Protein backbone atom coordinates (compact mmCIF):
# COMPACT_ATOMS: atom_id res chain seq x y z
CA UNK A 1 0.00 0.00 0.00
CA UNK A 2 2.77 2.38 0.95
CA UNK A 3 5.18 1.16 -1.69
CA UNK A 4 3.24 2.75 -4.54
CA UNK A 5 3.35 6.37 -3.32
CA UNK A 6 6.94 5.93 -2.16
CA UNK A 7 7.97 4.66 -5.58
CA UNK A 8 6.22 7.58 -7.23
CA UNK A 9 7.98 9.98 -4.88
CA UNK A 10 11.37 8.42 -5.58
CA UNK A 11 10.76 8.56 -9.31
CA UNK A 12 9.75 12.18 -9.04
CA UNK A 13 12.86 12.98 -7.03
CA UNK A 14 15.02 11.16 -9.52
CA UNK A 15 13.51 12.98 -12.46
CA UNK A 16 13.91 16.26 -10.66
CA UNK A 17 17.55 15.51 -10.08
CA UNK A 18 18.05 14.65 -13.74
CA UNK A 19 16.37 17.84 -14.81
CA UNK A 20 18.57 19.78 -12.45
CA UNK A 21 21.68 18.01 -13.78
CA UNK A 22 20.62 18.79 -17.34
CA UNK A 23 20.68 22.48 -16.50
CA UNK A 24 24.28 22.32 -15.41
CA UNK A 25 26.95 23.47 -17.81
CA UNK A 26 30.43 22.06 -17.81
CA UNK A 27 33.07 24.76 -17.89
CA UNK A 28 36.63 24.12 -18.99
CA UNK A 29 39.12 26.66 -17.85
CA UNK A 30 42.60 26.65 -19.34
CA UNK A 31 45.51 28.76 -18.17
CA UNK A 32 48.17 29.56 -20.75
CA UNK A 33 51.48 31.34 -20.35
CA UNK A 34 52.72 33.58 -23.15
CA UNK A 35 56.32 34.68 -23.08
CA UNK A 36 58.66 36.95 -24.97
CA UNK A 37 61.48 34.53 -24.29
CA UNK A 38 61.55 31.46 -26.47
CA UNK A 39 59.38 30.67 -29.45
CA UNK A 40 57.95 27.28 -28.61
CA UNK A 41 54.21 27.09 -29.14
CA UNK A 42 52.09 24.16 -27.94
CA UNK A 43 50.29 22.53 -30.85
CA UNK A 44 46.89 23.20 -29.35
CA UNK A 45 47.66 26.90 -29.03
CA UNK A 46 48.77 27.67 -32.57
CA UNK A 47 45.51 29.41 -33.54
CA UNK A 48 45.43 31.41 -30.33
CA UNK A 49 49.08 32.33 -30.71
CA UNK A 50 48.46 33.70 -34.19
CA UNK A 51 45.65 35.90 -32.93
CA UNK A 52 47.45 37.09 -29.84
CA UNK A 53 50.66 37.82 -31.73
CA UNK A 54 48.65 40.06 -34.01
CA UNK A 55 47.91 42.20 -30.96
CA UNK A 56 51.10 41.57 -28.99
CA UNK A 57 53.89 40.80 -31.47
CA UNK A 58 56.44 40.54 -28.68
CA UNK A 59 54.84 37.38 -27.33
CA UNK A 60 56.60 34.47 -29.02
CA UNK A 61 56.14 31.39 -26.87
CA UNK A 62 52.82 29.90 -25.77
CA UNK A 63 52.55 27.12 -23.25
CA UNK A 64 49.59 25.39 -21.64
CA UNK A 65 49.89 25.67 -17.87
CA UNK A 66 46.86 23.99 -16.35
CA UNK A 67 43.25 23.14 -16.86
CA UNK A 68 40.34 22.93 -14.48
CA UNK A 69 36.85 21.74 -15.11
CA UNK A 70 33.64 22.24 -13.16
CA UNK A 71 29.95 21.74 -13.73
CA UNK A 72 28.11 24.91 -12.88
CA UNK A 73 24.44 25.30 -12.19
CA UNK A 74 22.69 28.26 -13.69
CA UNK A 75 23.32 31.47 -11.73
CA UNK A 76 25.74 29.75 -9.37
CA UNK A 77 29.11 31.49 -9.29
CA UNK A 78 32.30 29.51 -9.02
CA UNK A 79 35.97 30.39 -8.85
CA UNK A 80 38.72 29.02 -11.07
CA UNK A 81 42.41 29.18 -10.18
CA UNK A 82 44.50 31.35 -12.47
CA UNK A 83 47.88 31.82 -10.84
CA UNK A 84 49.32 32.76 -7.46
CA UNK A 85 46.01 32.60 -5.59
CA UNK A 86 44.36 34.80 -8.20
CA UNK A 87 41.04 33.47 -9.37
CA UNK A 88 38.50 34.11 -12.08
CA UNK A 89 34.81 34.08 -11.24
CA UNK A 90 32.41 32.51 -13.73
CA UNK A 91 28.64 32.49 -13.66
CA UNK A 92 26.47 30.69 -16.20
CA UNK A 93 23.63 33.07 -16.87
CA UNK A 94 21.72 31.10 -19.48
CA UNK A 95 21.91 27.41 -20.32
CA UNK A 96 22.28 26.35 -23.93
CA UNK A 97 19.52 27.58 -26.18
CA UNK A 98 18.24 25.80 -29.28
CA UNK A 99 21.22 27.07 -31.22
CA UNK A 100 23.56 25.62 -28.60
CA UNK A 101 24.71 28.96 -27.28
CA UNK A 102 25.44 29.60 -23.62
CA UNK A 103 25.59 32.99 -21.92
CA UNK A 104 28.11 33.44 -19.16
CA UNK A 105 29.65 36.15 -17.03
CA UNK A 106 33.37 36.16 -16.38
CA UNK A 107 35.38 38.27 -13.98
CA UNK A 108 39.07 37.64 -14.62
CA UNK A 109 41.48 38.96 -12.00
CA UNK A 110 42.49 42.60 -12.49
CA UNK A 111 39.93 43.01 -15.26
CA UNK A 112 36.40 44.23 -15.49
CA UNK A 113 33.53 41.78 -15.74
CA UNK A 114 32.42 40.66 -19.18
CA UNK A 115 29.18 38.98 -20.16
CA UNK A 116 29.06 37.15 -23.48
CA UNK A 117 27.37 34.33 -25.32
CA UNK A 118 29.35 31.58 -26.94
CA UNK A 119 28.77 28.41 -28.92
CA UNK A 120 29.29 25.16 -27.07
CA UNK A 121 32.58 23.37 -27.43
CA UNK A 122 34.72 26.33 -28.43
CA UNK A 123 37.23 28.28 -26.42
CA UNK A 124 37.26 32.01 -25.93
CA UNK A 125 40.75 33.25 -25.06
CA UNK A 126 41.07 36.20 -22.69
CA UNK A 127 44.34 38.07 -22.64
CA UNK A 128 44.77 39.21 -19.06
CA UNK A 129 47.06 41.84 -17.58
CA UNK A 130 48.40 39.28 -15.13
CA UNK A 131 52.08 38.42 -15.31
CA UNK A 132 54.07 35.66 -13.72
CA UNK A 133 57.12 36.32 -11.56
CA UNK A 134 59.20 35.84 -14.70
CA UNK A 135 57.24 38.52 -16.48
CA UNK A 136 55.30 36.16 -18.74
CA UNK A 137 51.73 37.01 -19.55
CA UNK A 138 48.72 34.93 -18.57
CA UNK A 139 46.00 34.04 -21.05
CA UNK A 140 42.92 32.20 -19.88
CA UNK A 141 40.60 30.33 -22.20
CA UNK A 142 37.07 29.22 -21.38
CA UNK A 143 34.93 26.55 -23.05
CA UNK A 144 31.47 25.30 -22.15
CA UNK A 145 29.96 21.91 -22.93
CA UNK A 146 28.20 19.49 -23.35
CA UNK A 147 25.35 21.90 -23.64
CA UNK A 148 22.23 19.99 -22.79
CA UNK A 149 23.32 16.55 -24.01
Amino acid at each position, binding site marked *: MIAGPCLMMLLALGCGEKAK*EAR*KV*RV*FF*VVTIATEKGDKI*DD*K*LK*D*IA*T*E*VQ*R*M*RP*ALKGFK*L*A*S*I*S*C*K*SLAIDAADLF*DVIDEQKAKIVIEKAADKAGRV*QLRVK*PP*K*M*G*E*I*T*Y*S*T*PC*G*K*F*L*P*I*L*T*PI*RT*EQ*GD*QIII*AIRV*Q*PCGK
Partner: protein
Amino acid sequence: MTPDDVDDLRQLADLYRQTSPPEPSEAAWAEVFARVPSPAPRAPRGAGWWGPIVGAAALAAVASLALLVRAPAGPLAAADDEGPWEVALASEVQILRSGTDDADRLALGPRPQMGEFAVATAEEIVVVKAEDNPDGETTPTLDTGGPLSVIDWAGGRGDPPPRPTP
Protein backbone atom coordinates in the same frame (compact mmCIF):
# COMPACT_ATOMS: atom_id res chain seq x y z
CA MET B 1 34.69 -44.78 64.57
CA THR B 2 34.82 -47.29 67.41
CA PRO B 3 37.41 -47.43 70.25
CA ASP B 4 38.91 -50.47 68.55
CA ASP B 5 39.46 -48.46 65.36
CA VAL B 6 41.26 -45.76 67.35
CA ASP B 7 43.55 -48.34 68.87
CA ASP B 8 44.32 -49.78 65.45
CA LEU B 9 45.32 -46.32 64.14
CA ARG B 10 47.60 -45.72 67.15
CA GLN B 11 49.34 -49.02 66.59
CA LEU B 12 49.75 -48.21 62.88
CA ALA B 13 51.36 -44.87 63.70
CA ASP B 14 53.75 -46.50 66.16
CA LEU B 15 54.75 -49.07 63.59
CA TYR B 16 55.37 -46.28 60.97
CA ARG B 17 57.68 -44.40 63.36
CA GLN B 18 59.58 -47.56 64.25
CA THR B 19 60.14 -48.64 60.64
CA SER B 20 60.93 -45.20 59.03
CA PRO B 21 64.66 -44.76 58.06
CA PRO B 22 66.61 -41.94 59.74
CA GLU B 23 67.23 -38.60 57.92
CA PRO B 24 70.58 -38.45 56.02
CA SER B 25 73.36 -36.65 57.83
CA GLU B 26 74.90 -33.35 56.65
CA ALA B 27 77.97 -35.22 55.44
CA ALA B 28 75.79 -37.52 53.35
CA TRP B 29 74.07 -34.51 51.73
CA ALA B 30 77.45 -32.87 51.04
CA GLU B 31 78.65 -35.99 49.29
CA VAL B 32 75.54 -36.05 47.12
CA PHE B 33 75.88 -32.36 46.22
CA ALA B 34 79.53 -32.89 45.30
CA ARG B 35 78.47 -35.41 42.68
CA VAL B 36 75.98 -33.01 41.02
CA PRO B 37 77.67 -31.28 37.99
CA SER B 38 77.66 -27.49 37.91
CA PRO B 39 74.89 -25.98 35.65
CA ALA B 40 75.76 -25.06 32.03
CA PRO B 41 76.10 -21.32 31.26
CA ARG B 42 72.69 -19.74 30.46
CA ALA B 43 71.96 -19.11 26.77
CA PRO B 44 71.42 -15.49 25.71
CA ARG B 45 67.83 -14.35 25.97
CA GLY B 46 65.78 -14.93 22.81
CA ALA B 47 68.32 -17.23 21.22
CA GLY B 48 66.86 -20.39 22.54
CA TRP B 49 65.54 -23.18 20.40
CA TRP B 50 62.06 -21.71 20.65
CA GLY B 51 63.10 -18.30 19.21
CA PRO B 52 62.84 -19.25 15.51
CA ILE B 53 59.59 -21.07 16.14
CA VAL B 54 58.01 -18.07 17.85
CA GLY B 55 59.32 -15.78 15.08
CA ALA B 56 57.91 -18.01 12.38
CA ALA B 57 54.59 -18.19 14.15
CA ALA B 58 54.45 -14.38 14.42
CA LEU B 59 55.28 -13.99 10.73
CA ALA B 60 52.59 -16.48 9.80
CA ALA B 61 50.07 -14.63 11.94
CA VAL B 62 50.93 -11.27 10.33
CA ALA B 63 50.76 -12.78 6.82
CA SER B 64 47.39 -14.34 7.56
CA LEU B 65 46.07 -11.06 8.91
CA ALA B 66 47.29 -9.21 5.81
CA LEU B 67 45.61 -11.72 3.53
CA LEU B 68 42.39 -11.46 5.48
CA VAL B 69 42.42 -7.67 5.22
CA ARG B 70 43.37 -7.46 1.53
CA ALA B 71 41.33 -10.28 0.10
CA PRO B 72 37.62 -9.99 0.78
CA ALA B 73 36.20 -13.01 2.45
CA GLY B 74 33.51 -14.99 0.73
CA PRO B 75 30.42 -13.38 2.25
CA LEU B 76 31.84 -9.86 1.87
CA ALA B 77 32.78 -10.47 -1.75
CA ALA B 78 29.29 -11.63 -2.42
CA ALA B 79 27.86 -8.49 -0.83
CA ASP B 80 30.06 -6.22 -2.99
CA ASP B 81 29.31 -8.18 -6.10
CA GLU B 82 25.65 -7.36 -6.25
CA GLY B 83 25.99 -5.14 -9.31
CA PRO B 84 28.33 -2.98 -11.35
CA TRP B 85 30.17 -0.29 -9.48
CA GLU B 86 28.63 3.12 -9.62
CA VAL B 87 30.57 5.58 -11.70
CA ALA B 88 30.36 9.30 -11.13
CA LEU B 89 28.78 11.37 -13.84
CA ALA B 90 31.07 13.81 -15.57
CA SER B 91 28.93 16.57 -14.12
CA GLU B 92 29.62 15.29 -10.61
CA VAL B 93 33.38 15.57 -10.92
CA GLN B 94 35.20 18.84 -10.42
CA ILE B 95 38.75 19.02 -11.68
CA LEU B 96 40.25 21.78 -9.64
CA ARG B 97 43.60 21.72 -11.42
CA SER B 98 45.27 19.33 -13.79
CA GLY B 99 48.35 19.25 -15.94
CA THR B 100 47.38 19.76 -19.54
CA ASP B 101 49.30 16.69 -20.69
CA ASP B 102 47.11 14.49 -18.52
CA ALA B 103 43.82 16.15 -19.31
CA ASP B 104 42.92 13.87 -22.19
CA ARG B 105 43.65 10.78 -20.10
CA LEU B 106 40.82 11.58 -17.71
CA ALA B 107 37.92 9.27 -18.50
CA LEU B 108 35.13 11.74 -17.91
CA GLY B 109 32.28 11.77 -20.34
CA PRO B 110 32.28 10.58 -23.92
CA ARG B 111 34.95 12.97 -25.13
CA PRO B 112 38.51 13.71 -24.09
CA GLN B 113 38.66 16.52 -21.59
CA MET B 114 40.75 18.79 -23.73
CA GLY B 115 40.27 17.34 -27.19
CA GLU B 116 40.63 19.77 -29.99
CA PHE B 117 41.44 23.27 -28.92
CA ALA B 118 38.84 24.89 -31.14
CA VAL B 119 38.60 28.64 -30.71
CA ALA B 120 35.41 30.54 -31.41
CA THR B 121 35.47 32.73 -34.48
CA ALA B 122 34.95 36.45 -34.32
CA GLU B 123 31.32 36.05 -35.41
CA GLU B 124 30.51 33.38 -32.87
CA ILE B 125 31.11 35.43 -29.73
CA VAL B 126 28.60 38.06 -28.76
CA VAL B 127 29.58 40.40 -25.96
CA VAL B 128 26.52 41.32 -23.96
CA LYS B 129 28.19 43.60 -21.43
CA ALA B 130 31.70 44.65 -20.47
CA GLU B 131 32.44 46.56 -17.29
CA ASP B 132 35.39 48.60 -16.17
CA ASN B 133 37.60 47.13 -13.56
CA PRO B 134 37.04 49.24 -10.46
CA ASP B 135 40.75 49.02 -9.68
CA GLY B 136 41.90 50.43 -13.02
CA GLU B 137 41.13 50.97 -16.66
CA THR B 138 41.23 47.41 -17.82
CA THR B 139 37.92 47.07 -19.56
CA PRO B 140 37.72 43.73 -21.38
CA THR B 141 37.16 44.23 -25.08
CA LEU B 142 36.46 41.72 -27.81
CA ASP B 143 39.01 41.99 -30.55
CA THR B 144 37.42 41.45 -33.92
CA GLY B 145 40.40 42.27 -36.06
CA GLY B 146 41.20 38.66 -36.85
CA PRO B 147 39.36 35.49 -37.75
CA LEU B 148 39.20 34.26 -34.15
CA SER B 149 37.81 35.81 -31.02
CA VAL B 150 40.13 37.10 -28.33
CA ILE B 151 39.15 39.23 -25.38
CA ASP B 152 41.88 41.66 -24.47
CA TRP B 153 42.27 43.45 -21.21
CA ALA B 154 42.59 46.76 -23.02
CA GLY B 155 41.30 45.95 -26.45
CA GLY B 156 44.81 45.58 -27.75
CA ARG B 157 45.35 49.30 -27.54
CA GLY B 158 47.10 49.59 -24.26
CA ASP B 159 50.67 48.82 -23.50
CA PRO B 160 51.37 45.65 -21.57
CA PRO B 161 51.11 46.14 -17.86
CA PRO B 162 54.35 46.82 -16.02
CA ARG B 163 56.31 43.80 -14.98
CA PRO B 164 56.38 43.00 -11.33
CA THR B 165 59.51 44.11 -9.56
CA PRO B 166 61.54 41.14 -8.38
